[in-house]
């Protein structure tokens, strides 16, 4: 049967997602948020989620919608501070003990996700050594320098945003849209991409930024294309 990973609705893109899932959300610096799928996740209603996202509070991401709806019990991120003086919805729930928080250095966060998709259970990194974020982490010396041991992060679901997809799930990203998306797709059991446009015809090999074998479902938010 001819492979075709395109689905026709955001709801279909999230079919089968369960309570208690670990969900990776791409996006950084304002680019790459799968905001259509994040809203669909709110509408889907899955509860007790662990989010793996660079920021819990980025104003251009809709992450706050699933935080406010009470679907999230834990966040693994590098940034969890709201911009204003008033506490963000995330900060309120965190201070109230309703959401657990793990904050990692961004490079450790990125590498742990890559490791999750690359079959590396753990690696050593210099980042964070000697800081509060590395408290309790195993330390080891290589070549006269101290490193901390970080374990891989994997997920049940990854939601990422790309510019173009084809029916094979191949993706191409626009500028800084990729950020955490490619690794998150490799580290999740189910990887779903929202894209501006999804075509039947294959993206030429040299324009593929993430091979479709990592992507399970594609939802086109603007034009289905042919």
């Amino acid at each position, binding site marked *: 049967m001819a492979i075709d990973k395109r689905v026709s609705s955001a709801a279909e893109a999230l079919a089968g997602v369960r309570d208690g899932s670990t969900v990776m959300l791409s996006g950084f610096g304002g*680019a790459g948020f799968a905001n259509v799928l994040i809203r669909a996740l709110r509408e889907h209603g899955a509860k007790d989620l662990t989010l793996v996202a660079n920021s819990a509070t980025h104003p251009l991401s809709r992450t706050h919608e699933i935080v406010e709806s009470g679907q999230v019990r834990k966040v693994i991120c590098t940034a969890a501070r709201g911009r204003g003086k008033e506490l963000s919805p995330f900060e309120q729930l965190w201070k109230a003990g309703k959401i657990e928080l793990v904050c990692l250095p961004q490079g450790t966060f990125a590498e742990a996700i890559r490791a999750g998709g690359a079959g590396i259970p753990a690696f050593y990194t210099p980042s964070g050594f000697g800081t509060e974020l590395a408290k309790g982490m195993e330390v080891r010396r290589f070549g006269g320098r101290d490193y901390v041991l970080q374990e891989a992060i994997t997920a049940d679901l990854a939601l990422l945003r790309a510019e173009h997809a084809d029916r094979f799930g191949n993706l191409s990203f626009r500028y800084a849209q990729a950020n955490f998306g490619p690794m998150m797709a490799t580290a999740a059991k189910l990887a779903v991409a929202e894209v501006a446009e999804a075509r039947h015809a294959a993206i030429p090999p040299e324009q593929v930024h993430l091979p479709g074998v990592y992507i399970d479902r594609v939802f086109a938010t603007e034009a289905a294309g042919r």
Partner: protein
Amino acid sequence: MTKLSRHQMAWRAAQDIEDGMLVNLGIGIPVLTSNYLPPGRDVFFQSENGVIGVGPEAAKGQDDPNLVDAGSRRITLREGASVIDSSWSFAMIRGGHIDVTILGGFEVAENGDFANWDSRVPDKGPLVGGAMDLAACAQAVWVIMEHNTRDGRPRLLERCDLPLTAVRCAKRVYTDIAVIDVTPAGFLVEEIAEGISRDQLQARTGAKLAFAPDCRVLRAPAIDEAGSR
């Protein structure tokens, strides 16, 4: 006493960026340094979201929501630029490929310990981003910060009070009244602002200062900040 403005501090740091360097600029004052590179220095600015070759901010109407830096500014690319994903970007940072990172700071200790990520604002969530990777792994860490806090306490200390970003990493500190190297023997003043004595500088500093034999006057040109970003 001639204190440097934020833009003048950025200007001063920019003068030390060498031709051909790969440089990462933190948000705040550091990002201003890209405006003040001396003519003839060809530099690539890296942003930790994966942009290598950050150009000036995009003009309104010519911006692209996917062409942004780590601070969410809509930017342009310089000639020769490229864009990589976050895994590659931090492989570049952690692998020591960044020649200099210029970061804002709260505190620097005389052994190079550096604090810039957690100012202990009560109740607010943590925000570390890429600071720990940059501070721990760049070939050189330069810090731009006011010499003292608003209530006059020193930011250059024997030991940091605030939570560390990385240990023994800061190489140079640009303040509004001095340029100070962090050496194995502690702080070494390279430049000192006009109208402030060595004793006055020492009094405003929380650790012992040594002075370079050729310690110079810290000067920066007048900058029309309204015209600059």
